[in-house]
């Protein structure tokens, strides 16, 4: 039994406490995408509603954009309102932006025998940012506690940890066709990288 299967076994939920436990279960098993992305994509993805997974990517980008704002604020180049604006932009980019990019991958994989629905693609792309979320939290901690400029250092590393699961997602969408997988994954990764780079850091 894989790590993902072990931690993602749904527990009976009732009431507010049960809902909280279910959310914690999803969170802990969602982070396992960093360890075993293939296993999670194949067998556990249906446990994650798409708003929940976009919440993961949204929160990750909120933290990255917030750190950019904090870096700029420390350098005297951003007012508190600009920091807030950047954070909201991160929320928009991490939810609407990631959803649009996953829809792009889904559309582009159509000629290659794609069988999986759009919701699957959105869920997989959103959840790919679980490791990035961890880096975002670590980066914010280092930013606030030690005053480091963390936007690029932690942001790039977090973003790169999302690229692997994204590549596997596109492979599933294209029915394991090598060339289209790499082309589409590179395009999607490029859209997100350049979008993030130009909006937050540009």
């Amino acid at each position, binding site marked *: 039994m894989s790590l993902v299967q072990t931690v993602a076994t749904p527990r009976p939920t009732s009431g507010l406490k049960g809902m909280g436990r279910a959310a914690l279960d999803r969170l802990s098993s969602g982070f396992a995408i960093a360890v075993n992305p*293939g296993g999670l994509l194949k067998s556990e993805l249906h446990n994650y509603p798409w708003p929940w997974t976009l919440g993961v990517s949204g929160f990750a980008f909120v933290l990255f954009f917030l750190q950019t704002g904090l870096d700029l604020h420390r350098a005297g180049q951003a007012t508190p309102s600009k920091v807030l604006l950047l954070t909201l932009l991160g929320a928009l980019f991490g939810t609407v932006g990631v959803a649009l990019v996953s829809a792009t991958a889904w559309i582009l994989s159509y000629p290659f025998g794609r069988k999986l629905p759009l919701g699957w693609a959105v869920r997989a792309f959103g959840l790919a940012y679980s490791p990035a979320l961890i880096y975002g939290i670590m980066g914010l901690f280092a930013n606030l506690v030690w005053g480091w400029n963390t936007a*690029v250092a932690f942001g*790039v*590393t977090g973003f*790169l*940890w999302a*690229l*692997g699961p994204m*590549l596997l997602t596109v*492979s599933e969408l294209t*029915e*394991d*066709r*090598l060339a289209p997988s*790499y082309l589409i*994954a*590179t395009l999607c*990764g*490029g859209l997100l*990288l*350049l979008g993030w*780079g*130009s909006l937050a*850091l*540009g």
Partner: protein
Amino acid sequence: MARGLKISKTAPLPTYRGWNLFCFAVLGFLAGRSAHGSGWQLAIWVGAGWLFGLLALGVLSILLRRLYYDLVMIRGSRAIPSGMSQGFLSLIPFTALALMADVFLGWNATAAFTSAGLMFGGGATVTAFSKLNPQAKKGLVASVVPSLAAAGLAFAWMIGVALLQRALGVLR
């Protein structure tokens, strides 16, 4: 994983080593740019990247040939280079994004892209091997060693970049 690998036992397994080495050469070029190299120095960086890829994949191949002996027995001696080259094809998006980050965003982050690409390549190699021999029972050691070895390669890359930078500085 790939359609190209769903072939009979008599047909030779494909390898993509040329693409792997191309990625290493491009990453060498980007590392050279980060080190403010130009002209003949960049040519050396490209060659060094290519050579690093050749040596790294060669050493890894020897290690994995011992670890995945059952795969060699079932699919032949080309199974290891084929699976490895397919796993390390995942360097392509990492290399392309490193190029984009350098050209469009002016980021000096090639080391991070290279490390992440190599480490993901190690994991993808395990996946490629398991698709070449789906019946094989995957032990913990066989699953973890390629990723650990790939992490070692990422470390070696960083050391290599620092050493070459210093050597070229002396020559200059």
